[in-house]
C-alpha cells in the first residue's frame, strides 16, 4: 500500500506538466472557495459587531429589522420620530446608564448626516467593545461643527477646517442644500469598518438650527434666518429618530424592553441589537450563500478537469499497467494506484491553494480594509474551513474512483498483453 502510494506519486511527477496545470486549477478554485468563506465570515463578524455595548435600540414602532436599518446603518427612513419628552423619560429611567439620541434625515453627498450628542463619542462602541477614536481633530464644540467618518474624509478628501453644506433628505442628486448654514469639519474619526465611517455627525442643535426656516420639508419662501442668529433661537429638538440605550445592568434588558414597548404616550419599539442584527443578516445571507455555492461549483469544475486529465492518460498507460500486473499487482492495486493519483493531486492543489490564499490575504488585507472597511484577518485554517476542505477531499475521493475503476476494467481486459 505504501509502495503503491509512492508509485502513484512518482507516476504523477513523471507527468508533472499536464498535472501541474490541473494542480493550478484546483489550487485556484480552492483559494476562491476558502477566500469566499473567509470574506463571508469576516463580513458577518464585522456586521454583527457594527454596534456593541448598546443594550437596546429604541425607535417608533416598526419592524425590528427596519429599526436597525435606519438607526444603526442609516439606510432608509424612519416611519416616525420620537418626541423629545419620550427621550427624556427613557433617559431618566433608573435602569438606564446612558443614552445616545440620533436624529436623521439630512445627507451630505450621499453620506447620511446624524444629529447626536457628545454621548455618542463616549458611549458608542463597535467590534469587541472598541470606542470611537479620532484620527484627527476633536468632537464638535460649537453649533456648526461636524465630525466625519473615515470614509467620508477619504472619499471626499476633507480635512479639519473644511467647510461643508448639508442637503435636505437622503440621496445625492436633486436635493435642496442647506447652503446658508455651512458646517466646519472639526474632527475625523478613525476607521471602524462600520456604518460610522460613512456618517457625518453634527449636534442635535445643529439639525434644529438648519431647519429653523423650514416647514413641512421645504424652505419657507422669502424667509431666512442667517447662521449667526441661529443660536439665539430655542434649539432644543422637538423630536429624535432613535435612541441607543445602555443599561446599568444587562440583566435588566428585558424589563427595560417591556417598559419601552408598553410606553403609554406613543407607540415605541425596543430591540436587542444582537438579535436584530442576526435577523438582518438572514436577509443578506442569501447572497453570500449563493456566492459560496458558485465557488463550490468552481471547485467541482476543477475536479472534473482533474478526472478528465487522468482518464485521458489511461490509454497511454496501458503498457505500464500491464507491467505492474505481470509483476503481481492485483486489479485492486491498479484501482488504488489510479484513485490515489487523483486524491494526491487534489491534496497538493489544496495545499497550494491555501498557501496562495495566505499570500493574497497578507498582501491585500490592508488594501481591502482601507477601501471596503472589511477586516480580513490572516489566520490558520478555521474549523468551518476544515469542513469545506474535507468536503473537497470527499468529492475528489468520489471523483477519483472513476479513473480507478477505468484502470481496473482496462487491466482486467488487457491482462498481460495490452492491445495497443
Amino acid at each position, binding site marked *: 500500500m505504501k509502495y503503491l502510494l509512492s508509485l502513484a506519486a*512518482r507516476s504523477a511527477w513523471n507527468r508533472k506538466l499536464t498535472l501541474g496545470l490541473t494542480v493550478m486549477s484546483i489550487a485556484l478554485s480552492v483559494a476562491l472557495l476558502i477566500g469566499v468563506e473567509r470574506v463571508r465570515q469576516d463580513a458577518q463578524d464585522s456586521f454583527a459587531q457594527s454596534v456593541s455595548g448598546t443594550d437596546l435600540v429604541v425607535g417608533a414602532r416598526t419592524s425590528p429589522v427596519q429599526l436597525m436599518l435606519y438607526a444603526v446603518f442609516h439606510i432608509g427612513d424612519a416611519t416616525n420620530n420620537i418626541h423629545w419628552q419620550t427621550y427624556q423619560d427613557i433617559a431618566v429611567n433608573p435602569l438606564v446608564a446612558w443614552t445616545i439620541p440620533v436624529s436623521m434625515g439630512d445627507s451630505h453627498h450621499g453620506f447620511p448626516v446624524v444629529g447626536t450628542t457628545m454621548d455618542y463619542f463616549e458611549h458608542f462602541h463597535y467590534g469587541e467593545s472598541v470606542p470611537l477614536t479620532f484620527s484627527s481633530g476633536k468632537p464638535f464644540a460649537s453649533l456648526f461643527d461636524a465630525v466625519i467618518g473615515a470614509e467620508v474624509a477619504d472619499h471626499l478628501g476633507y480635512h479639519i477646517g473644511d467647510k461643508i453644506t448639508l442637503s435636505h433628505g437622503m440621496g445625492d442628486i436633486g436635493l435642496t442644500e442647506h447652503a446658508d448654514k455651512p458646517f466646519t469639519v472639526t474632527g475625523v474619526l478613525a476607521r471602524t469598518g462600520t456604518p460610522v465611517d460613512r456618517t457625518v455627525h453634527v449636534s442635535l442643535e445643529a439639525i434644529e438650527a438648519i431647519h429653523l426656516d423650514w416647514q413641512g420639508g421645504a424652505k419657507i419662501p422669502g424667509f431666512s434666518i442667517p447662521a449667526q442668529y441661529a443660536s439665539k433661537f430655542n434649539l432644543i429638538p422637538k423630536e429624535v429618530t432613535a435612541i441607543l440605550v445602555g443599561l446599568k445592568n444587562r440583566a435588566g434588558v428585558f424589563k427595560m424592553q417591556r417598559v419601552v414597548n408598553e410606553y403609554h404616550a406613543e407607540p415605541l419599539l425596543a430591540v436587542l441589537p444582537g438579535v436584530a442584527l442576526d435577523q438582518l443578516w438572514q436577509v443578506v445571507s442569501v447572497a453570500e450563500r449563493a456566492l459560496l455555492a458558485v465557488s463550490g461549483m468552481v471547485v467541482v469544475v476543477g475536479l472534473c478537469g482533474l478526472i478528465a486529465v487522468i482518464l485521458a492518460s489511461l490509454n497511454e498507460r496501458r503498457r*505500464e499497467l500491464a507491467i505492474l500486473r505481470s*509483476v*503481481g499487482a492485483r486489479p485492486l492495486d491498479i484501482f488504488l494506484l489510479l484513485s490515489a493519483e487523483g486524491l494526491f493531486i487534489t491534496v497538493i492543489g489544496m495545499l497550494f491553494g491555501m498557501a496562495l490564499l495566505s499570500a493574497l490575504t497578507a498582501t491585500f488585507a490592508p488594501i481591502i480594509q482601507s477601501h471596503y472597511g472589511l477586516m480580513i484577518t490572516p489566520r490558520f485554517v478555521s474549523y468551518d474551513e476544515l469542513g469545506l476542505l474535507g468536503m473537497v477531499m470527499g468529492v475528489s475521493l468520489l471523483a477519483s474512483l472513476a479513473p480507478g475503476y477505468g484502470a481496473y476494467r482496462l487491466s*482486467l481486459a488487457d491482462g498481460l*498483453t495490452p492491445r495497443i
Partner: protein
Amino acid sequence: MANSVIRLENLAFRYPNADNVCLDIQELHADAGDRIFIYGPSGSGKSTLLGLLGGVLTPERGTISLLGHELTSISPSARDRLRADHIGFVFQQFNLIPYLSVTDNVLLSCRFSARRHSRALASGNTLHDEAARLLDHLDIAPELRHRPVTQLSVGQQQRVAVARALIGRPEIVIADEPTSALDAERQSAFLDLLSRECIDADSTLLFVSHDRRLASGFNREIALPSLNRAETTQEFA
C-alpha cells in the same frame, strides 16, 4: 509429476462474447530446469496462453497447474500472488516503467512479492546489491543504474527487464518475443545471456517467438499451431 513445474490438461479458453474457442490444448507440461521454445506465429493463441499461465485469464474447462497449485481452483488474488511469487515476465518491448530508475524497475518484482523480496535478500546483502549483481551479469554498466530507463537503448532495456524477471529467483521465466526489437547479432547474444541466467537461477524458461531460427539453443521446442486444436483465425496478438 513431482518435477512438473507447469502442467496444462484438456484446456479450452473462449474470450467473453466470442463465438469460438480460441485455445484448445490437450496437454502441455514443463519440468524443472526445462528451457522450452514455443513457436507461436501471430494469431496462434500465444497471448491467450500467456494470460492463462499468468493467471489473468481463466479457462472454460481443463486444468492449469503451476508448481502443484491448481490455478482454476484458487481465487483471482491468489493467482496474482502466485504469479508475483513464482513467475518472471519479459515482454517484447517497453518492458519498463518510464518514471522509475533502472534499479527501481528491477526491484519492482520484489515490491509485490514478499517471497521474492526475501529470496533476493538471501542472495545479496541488500536488495540494491542483488539488483546490482544481476545488472552486472547482464552487462548494464553501474553508471546506468540510477538513470531513468528512457535514456537506455532498446537492448539495454530488454536486459534490465531480464534482471527484473530473475530477481528473487522465480521458478518460471516467461519471455514473450523479447528479441523482436533487437537486430540479429544482438538477438543471439541476448538469448545466450537469458539462458545462462535462467540456468544460474534454476528457473524454467518458456520462450515464445514467431521466429523459429531462435529455437536452436533450447532443449525442447513446441509449436503452438499444432498444439492448439482450436480454429484460430482471429488475431489476438
